[in-house]
């Protein structure tokens, strides 16, 4: 291999790693939000990603209400709108199912409701997968946009070597970063964000402050679902998907959240970014089947060195 194409390959893998990583980061924030605030392990998160993809698909293609936006802007607006739609789905799932096995209702019981949560979210996951099969069918879909097959070529100044930036992935990455920053601002500076963090930190004390913890948990669950759905909508522009797509990504989401530090919502973004980056860059030396194995090798190394995750911190005074 000559040095020109080597440089080209490495740089392309690095940029793909960063762009894909940012989208994974957003996806992980959704799961991290639910786990960080409610301490609920949600096995159905992958299916909410899938619902986000389909929500975006039905919004922007065929007779969808966003079809008039055309194939350039439409898919990205569709991805953003998938957020509120899946937020509502998540809030309903919480109201009728999750709230019965979580929150103040199960606080202080022998397992804090974790066994119930495990079975309920696993059940939701299976129902959504197979329900998706009935409703959407099994042919793979993508949200078509001409941007996914065009790239910006950037010369690197070494012979003919240049980096190709896929336009769809680039825009998706920018949208993912914007949504992540917006969420960060909400969590850090608004009354709702602070109340969410207070309810996560100490639900009983939050109740003493007049914070309706169950209401905020519902909001957190909805937001977590909605954020992952936006990531799903973005991924749908460059990926073909079906009702079972969630399974591949739920594993990535969990490794991202654990890497970022359990409970650290923004850490989940960096965790997801790391996972996406490792996955893409490993393609340089490993066959595609081993890409996910590479994720877990890096995962194990990081967890070995920093068991609390990259951004996990202990606020407790010794």
């Amino acid at each position, binding site marked *: 291999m000559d040095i020109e194409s080597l440089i080209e390959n490495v740089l392309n893998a690095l940029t793909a790693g960063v762009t894909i990583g940012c989208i994974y980061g957003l996806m992980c924030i959704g799961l991290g939000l639910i786990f960080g605030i409610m301490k609920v392990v949600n096995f159905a998160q992958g299916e909410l990603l899938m619902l986000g993809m389909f929500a975006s698909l039905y919004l922007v293609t065929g007779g969808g209400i966003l079809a008039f936006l055309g194939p350039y802007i439409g898919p990205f607006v569709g991805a953003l709108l998938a957020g509120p739609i899946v937020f509502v789905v998540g809030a309903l799932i919480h109201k009728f199912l999750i709230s019965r096995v979580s929150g103040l209702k199960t606080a202080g019981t022998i397992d804090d409701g974790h066994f119930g949560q495990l079975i309920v979210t696993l059940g939701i996951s299976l129902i959504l997968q197979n329900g998706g099969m009935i409703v959407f069918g099994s042919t793979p879909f993508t949200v078509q946009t001409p941007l996914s097959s065009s790239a910006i070529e950037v010369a690197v100044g070494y012979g003919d070597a240049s980096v190709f930036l896929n336009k769809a992935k680039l825009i998706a990455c920018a949208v993912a970063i914007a949504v992540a920053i917006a969420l960060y601002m909400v969590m850090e500076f608004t009354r709702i964000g602070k109340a969410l963090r207070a309810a996560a930190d100490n639900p009983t004390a939050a109740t003493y402050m007049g914070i309706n913890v169950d209401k905020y948990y519902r909001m957190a669950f909805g937001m977590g679902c909605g954020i992952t759905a936006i990531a799903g909508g973005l991924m749908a522009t460059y990926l073909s998907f079906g009702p079972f797509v969630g399974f591949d990504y739920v594993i990535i989401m969990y490794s991202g959240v654990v890497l970022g530090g359990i409970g650290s919502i923004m850490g989940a973004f960096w965790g997801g970014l790391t996972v996406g980056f490792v996955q893409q860059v490993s393609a340089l030396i490993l066959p595609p089947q081993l890409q996910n194995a590479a994720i877990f090798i890096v995962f194990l190394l990081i967890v070995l060195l920093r068991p609390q995750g990259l951004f996990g911190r202990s*606020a407790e005074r010794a």
Partner: protein
Amino acid sequence: MLEVSNLSVSYGGLRALTDVSLSVAEGQFVTVVGPNGAGKTTLFKTISGVVRPAAGKITFFGKDLATISASDRAHLGIAHVPEGRQVFKTLTVRENLEMGAYPAAGQAAWSRTLDRIHTLFPILFERATQLAGTLSGGEQQMVAIGRGLACAPRLLMLDEPSMGLAPAVTDTIFERVQQIHKEDGVTILLVEQRVAEALELSDHGYVLETGHMVLDGPYETLLADDRVRKSYLGLT
């Protein structure tokens, strides 16, 4: 303002409180004393609604609290400073106080109460941006009390503010509680194991033993009672 009448509470068949009555008038300083496991914390948790009573009635300004959810009770002006402080460890000191001001009354009075809290506890101003979990026990207790004050309460309930604190720090805390009562005119309901100091501050005292209210009366009456003198004050 607060009337607790014939309250009984059970935890899965285990009686924690039996037929307990207590009343707090506006502007009063009322103390509940009693040994470990007497049910003092349970009494507070039932008033603030996180524990459901088996029988009995609690009214606040004539309003029956039975149908009012725990989180809504804070909006009525009941501030609960819980046992063991329970500050939001991962939030900053300032954010903790802001959460105390979550009810509308607290938000309306925010800039004034924040000044007041900083006057009472200047250290909280210095540590405003520090995570509350990194503070010492005494400082955390100040955050907890400040957080209670931030909602502009009509009734401030303090559950063992001296727990686990050095005597000198406890003295400061007691002094501040007295200031809050005298200068801000806040009605106070206090649970304490440091019986002598607590009763000295109060207009009216209750003695709770194994879930029963065994004695109540003004400071002088309790001080004259042999059992109180022997068991709680160590006097003969």
